[in-house]
């Protein structure tokens, strides 16, 4: 079982380490872009590897936001509630010391056992969750704390109350608030980057993605159900819309790939946290000297440049 796939993964990991050194956050200019493209042609994952990423991104032992927080932060204080009507447990917010500075963190949170999974609504936020996130963003802006966001959500919750409380509008306003912040924002997709629910907290100066995370406009099952008229064709759908980190880097959607321990983040939480911590630290250091106006202007310019058309 661990033979072929494992070997391919190890090999890819080595390639990815090179990629992230080359690329992402520090890359600008046409020359580097071409160089990156050259690298990627060799690194393009196969359909099998893409599906493996989907499975690993959803692995039940994969580290979640609080697993990373516990390993990376000192003096962590979790905050609760949206100051309006609820405390959405699918999303955690708080303050902590990271690399010698106070940072504000927002992260999607899934549960480990049945009880916790239910309590955290399988990681699917209600509009109240995004309002809770927005409350933290305002706090970060007021006190000049850099904002970190960890994204791991199958999708925003599709329910009657969620709609009545304004799911779509809240996702839009959470993004709009991020587009206005004058503090550095670093996002990492650490598992499932599911559609609108993910982008609500991912409008960042630096968007990172773990090696085996996925970032999607729709779940592979959902896409398959519509286009192939069969949810069982999820594997084909995933191969077609390419939600893996390498393709996201290629399309300019993310800035860098964060390596995971061999076999995936679930095999060694400590090592995964160390690798994530290094990448977050690098990204924050890059952004620290940039003025609030420049941060905002560049952040908007970056997202406004995304798309392919003729």
């Amino acid at each position, binding site marked *: 079982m661990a033979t072929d796939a494992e070997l391919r993964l190890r090999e890819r990991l080595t390639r990815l380490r090179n990629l992230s050194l080359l690329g992402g956050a520090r890359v600008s200019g046409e020359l580097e872009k071409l160089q990156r493209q050259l690298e990627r042609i060799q690194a393009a994952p196969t359909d099998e590897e893409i599906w493996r990423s989907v499975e690993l991104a959803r692995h039940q032992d994969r580290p979640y936001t609080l697993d990373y927080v516990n390993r990376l932060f000192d003096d962590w204080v979790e905050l609760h509630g949206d100051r309006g009507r609820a405390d959405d447990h699918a999303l955690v917010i708080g303050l902590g010391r990271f690399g010698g500075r106070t940072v504000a963190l927002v992260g999607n949170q899934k549960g480990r056992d049945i009880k916790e999974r239910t309590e955290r609504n399988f990681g699917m936020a209600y509009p109240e969750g995004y309002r809770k996130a927005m409350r933290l963003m305002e706090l970060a802006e007021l006190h000049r704390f850099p904002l970190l966001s960890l994204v791991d959500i199958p999708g*925003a919750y599709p329910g009657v109350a969620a709609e009545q409380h*304004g799911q779509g509008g809240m996702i*839009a306003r959470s993004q*709009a608030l991020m587009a206005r912040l004058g503090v550095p924002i670093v996002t990492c997709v650490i598992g499932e980057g599911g559609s*609108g629910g993910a982008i609500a907290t991912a*409008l960042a100066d630096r968007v990172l993605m773990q090696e085996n995370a996925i970032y999607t406009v729709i779940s592979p099952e959902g896409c398959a159900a*519509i*286009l192939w008229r069969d949810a069982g064709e999820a594997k084909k759908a995933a191969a077609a*819309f390419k939600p893996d980190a390498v393709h996201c880097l290629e399309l300019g959607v993310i800035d860098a790939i964060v390596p995971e321990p061999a076999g995936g983040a679930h095999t060694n939480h400590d090592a995964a946290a160390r690798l994530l911590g290094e990448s977050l630290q690098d990204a924050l250091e890059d952004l620290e000297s940039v003025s609030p106006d420049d941060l905002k202007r560049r952040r908007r310019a970056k997202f406004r440049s995304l798309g392919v058309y003729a």
Partner: protein
Amino acid sequence: MSSRIDVSIEHRNVPEPSGNQHPNTCPQCSSHYRDDELEAALWVCPHCGHHFTMRARARIASLTDEATFVEEAADLRSEDPLDFFDLRPYTERLAEAEMKTGLGEAMVIGQGTIDGNACELAVMDFAFMGGSMGSVVGEKFSRACDAAAQRGVPLISVTASGGARMQEGILSLMQLPKTVCAVEDLHDSGQPLISVMTHPTTAGVLASFASLGDVIVAEPGALLAFTGPRVVQQTTREKLPEDFGLAEQNLRFGHIDAIVPRPELKAYVARLLRLFSPNGD
């Protein structure tokens, strides 16, 4: 209703197929009309008031003063960044949509005047691949924001969309933050976005620029939902309220400012334009 799990973005909020019903037959009261009758009535059923879907060009003609609209960025076309192929290639679907609608994409932008008030317009067309938002829709909307900011005029958006265009994969999701950033730049220039939501305005478009209007109005009976009723029902098994996700419910819950019937829309938008104009004229 089919039993398969349907959680699409592009298609999930599309109205139920009306079987063999003719497009000119009212789905609510079954009255049937000739093309010219419907056109004269702005595609509102004269009998029961049902609002039929309105095409982008007709919408622009109904809102702007005669011969004032000048289209912009009409030659933008979608690429196929993923070589997307499901049962058919994306490029084929695009070509077919263009043939069918006579439009290059699911959004038309340009400048014009409404009761003499200069403005920029960004109008979606549901007939072009379900009004789905891909790179070109995002870019056109983004340019409309810049054009409005440059000329110092408000932007009117009229949305009709099933959501993001999944054939462009993650890039279609990126049109959410892209259009959001464009609205923020528009706001920084001091100009408002007036958002008119028509049936259906769902998923990715509702979760981005459409919800950021300084004033948001909707047409009667329009479905305005992040997740449509079918998917909510299938996922949660909840009993849905009668008007789930419709404009009327959204007004009740405080998500929109008004429901304006189509024949009154031009005058309503003109009044807003006057209010936002520095001289009030």
